[in-house]
């Protein structure tokens, strides 16, 4: 879930926008109420998904990488070796169960070899049985980074395949076939095609979490059309694509896959007969339709409510049993560029002076989330422990409204001028004004630098263009901080906006990544998280929340902790 889907509410909101997400709301109720549960699930009906974007980012299983899309496609058309349990409970909902595999994998060789056995009777929509070769071929596509873009790169970084001098894999994917023999050695199939073995370059104790990503879903080699596979991938789940028309007024329709059998797939419930995604709708219109609840919209769902709808939905008791207000997977923060602000005291002063209370209020107060104290979010589980960032870690207890006097003391007469990069949206512009005003009280001059939202990442990932402070948000890919700490704070990470490169930190992070004792590993992540806060690699501002309103006739409409999404494989239409 590292990256969020740009199509959803104000592009780049979640990953890049961070502060924009749930800008404001109204009313007093911030109590967390769970979605409609209870009742007996029934088969049949159609669930309509009202979508702001004019198409999916990607439908190709190896290219899907945003939380909501991963959940949707995994629940409907892509089977993976393992999958997350359907539950609204934070712990259960992030635990894994077997899906295409018969169990959650067998580990050997000290964590460097993982073996999965493929379930009998699993087929593609064509009727062809899914074999090890299909899974293997699917994984191999990740390596064709020129065509298969946007997807997670875990297979590339974890599999035991030599690297070229420039850091890219020696295997160039199934189209170019360079280094095919290396890949064939790293991923092997048994003679009967039932068992698949992954050989990893380092022990990865949580590899079976990575295999929940649709990047590890099977793809029949004969049907692979390369880049075009993104428009009509072959289904292995209970539904298949019948229509995919992009653009405003476009639709994506899933109908039942008659080759799928419940016996071969105990994981998915596949209650509704079909799914329909309506593209290119105005966010205000979507909210209005869900709020007024006309007959056709009672079986509709969408994602985040707009700020203006929150007071309506959360002040009216008639929505009490439908609305959801839960933690989303993301931590919102301001990355502090270590290359541009090398002085620790200055970084600490910037963090100390910041009025986090005003920032949170601007984003919607309690609806926007809780104050964050580090990169790791509590809903990740064992890896979280309070860092004490605001309770003495920076030398003093820092109130949420900031402590400009203490910041001045840390600066010892310095008056730095820094620039804040953010995606250009009205709410972010107000956040920038708050940052300017609160830092000014400590003698720090902040220059706002709005960047066009669609280009935001391209700009801030360029070390030549990134400034001192960078607005960001990140969510763990699975409940292990191995998808947070190394990604955010080491040079090899995929989201190191802080440009952190601390030798001791890198070594400790690498050691934690291969630690097989989960309890010990958790302590290591907690220490590193604390270190990152103390060193002010980032200024964590909020553990984000997410508010939604499903149609009245949708059953099992709870927020699924695994992806911070709807539990697509578990939802049904109430009769």
């Amino acid at each position: 879930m590292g990256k969020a889907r740009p199509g959803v509410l104000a592009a780049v909101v979640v990953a890049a926008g961070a502060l924009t997400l749930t800008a404001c709301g109204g009313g007093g109720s911030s109590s967390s109420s769970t979605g409609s549960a209870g009742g007996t699930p029934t088969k049949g009906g159609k669930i309509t998904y009202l979508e702001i974007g004019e198409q999916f980012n990607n439908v190709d299983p190896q290219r899907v990488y945003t939380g909501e899309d991963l959940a949707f496609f995994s629940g409907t058309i892509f089977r993976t070796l393992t999958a997350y349990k359907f539950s609204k409970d934070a712990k259960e909902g992030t635990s894994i169960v077997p899906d295409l595999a018969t169990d959650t994998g067998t580990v050997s060789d000290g964590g460097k070899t993982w073996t999965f056995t493929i379930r009998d009777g699993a087929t593609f929509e064509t009727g062809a049985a899914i074999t090890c070769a299909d899974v293997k071929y699917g994984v191999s596509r990740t390596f064709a980074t020129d065509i298969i873009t946007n997807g997670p790169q875990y297979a590339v970084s974890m599999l035991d395949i030599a690297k070229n001098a420039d850091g890219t894999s020696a295997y160039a994917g199934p189209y170019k076939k360079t280094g095919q023999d290396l890949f064939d050695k790293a991923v092997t199939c048994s003679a009967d095609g039932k068992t698949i073995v992954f050989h990893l370059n380092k022990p990865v104790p949580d590899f079976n979490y990575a295999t929940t990503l649709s990047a590890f879903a099977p793809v029949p080699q004969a049907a692979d059309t390369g880049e075009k596979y993104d428009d009509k991938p072959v289904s292995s789940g209970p539904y298949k694509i019948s229509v995919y028309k992009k653009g405003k007024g476009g639709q994506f329709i899933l109908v039942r896959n008659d080759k799928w059998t419940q016996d071969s797939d105990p994981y998915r419930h596949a209650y509704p007969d079909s799914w329909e995604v309506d593209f290119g709708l105005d966010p205000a219109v979507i909210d209005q339709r869900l709020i007024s609840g006309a007959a056709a919209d009672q079986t509709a769902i969408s994602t985040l409510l707009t700020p203006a709808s929150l007071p309506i939905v959360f002040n009216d008791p008639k929505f009490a049993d439908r609305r959801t207000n839960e933690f989303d997977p993301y931590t919102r923060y301001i990355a502090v560029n270590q290359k541009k602000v090398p002085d620790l005291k200055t970084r600490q002063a910037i963090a100390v002076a910041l009025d986090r209370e005003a920032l949170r209020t601007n984003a919607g107060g309690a609806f926007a989330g809780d104050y964050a104290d580090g990169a790791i979010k509590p809903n990740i589980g064992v890896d979280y422990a309070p860092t004490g960032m605001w309770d003495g870690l920076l030398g003093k207890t820092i109130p949420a409204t900031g402590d400009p006097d203490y910041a001045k003391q840390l600066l010892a007469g310095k008056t730095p001028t820094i620039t804040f990069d953010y995606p250009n949206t009205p709410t972010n512009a107000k956040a920038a004004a708050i940052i300017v005003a609160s830092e000014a009280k400590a003698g720090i001059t902040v220059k706002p630098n709005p960047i066009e939202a669609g280009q935001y990442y391209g700009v801030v990932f360029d070390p030549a263009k990134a400034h001192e402070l960078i607005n960001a948000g990140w969510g763990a890919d699975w409940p292990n901080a191995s998808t947070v700490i190394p990604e955010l704070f080491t040079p090899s990470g995929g989201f190191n906006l802080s440009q952190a490169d601390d030798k001791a930190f890198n070594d400790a992070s690498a050691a934690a990544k291969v630690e097989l004792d989960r309890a010990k590993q958790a302590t290591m992540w907690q220490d590193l998280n604390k270190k990152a806060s103390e060193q002010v690699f980032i200024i964590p501002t909020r553990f984000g929340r997410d508010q939604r309103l499903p149609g009245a006739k949708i059953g099992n409409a709870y927020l699924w902790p695994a992806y911070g999404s709807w539990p697509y494989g578990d939802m049904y239409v109430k009769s």
Partner: protein
Amino acid sequence: MAVDVDTEARGADGVVAPEEIKGRSLSAIAWGRFRRDKTAMISLGVLIFLLLCALFAPLITSVMGLDPYEINRHAIDDIGMPLGCGKPDSAFFCGISWQHPFGVEPGTGRDLFSRLLYGLRISLLIAFSATTITVILGTVFGIVSGYLGGRTDAVIGRLMDIILAFPFLLIVLALSGVFTQRLTDLGVPEGNASRITYLILVFSIFGWPYLARIVRGQVLSVREREFVEASIAMGSGTRRILFKEILPNLWAPIMIYATLTLPTYIATEAVLSFLGVGVLPPTPTFGAILADSVQYMSIIPSYLLIPGVLLAIVVVTFNLVGDSVRDALDPRAGRV
């Protein structure tokens, strides 16, 4: 609307009063017409009031104890709504108080009245500067092109065609980053100074061909007139003919064009800052305020309505004054 001045100037007995005619220059006649136009005088009054407000914005806001940049945590509730807003029974004009006569911005509690006054300053600064440059460029190119004719006319004519063919909005959006950076490199202070300069330049560069075409057309007819021929015959230089003989005859179309262009620049600036090109936060502008307010349309309608109506008033009064100037200067060109 056009009253026959000649009739007015005669006495009741129809005898022309000699000193009246002597005392009235072209501009005096125009001003006389303008003064009798009620719409014009009311618009002018509103306009002068707005201009004074903008000019003395810092004074007005400090007298009222307001600061457009101050974050007013006390004016908003826990989730950032202006006090009294966002409840099912909220009033239409929620968030408005004696202290904040136009209400406050949700999220930050910044005072809307002072932000709008400061926003007006920026809008007017950009619009006036851009109009001035547009008029200078348009007039000079128009006169030169019309009077010299031939190759010069052809070159300027094609240049104008090219500029008019550009999709203005697209270019402005696409080039803003690069050009602002370039201006900074050239020594214009970084930040808002560069961004405002960029807007003024872009408006002027894309605005002058319209005026130049009008001026060129006028010059084509004026240059054939006897006094120009006389001046040529007397051996005057080209510059003298252009600017001393021909230019004074062009003031009417130029004035008309300028007064009608100004409001379009104000509106365009608002559109651009709405789209996020333009002045940086926390500096307030109409467009940025409107862009933020549309999100809250359903729960804080006054937040959208007040800036929207104010912008409309500014643009409409400028337009009405422009129309009246045209009527006064050129009564025969009646409105369609």
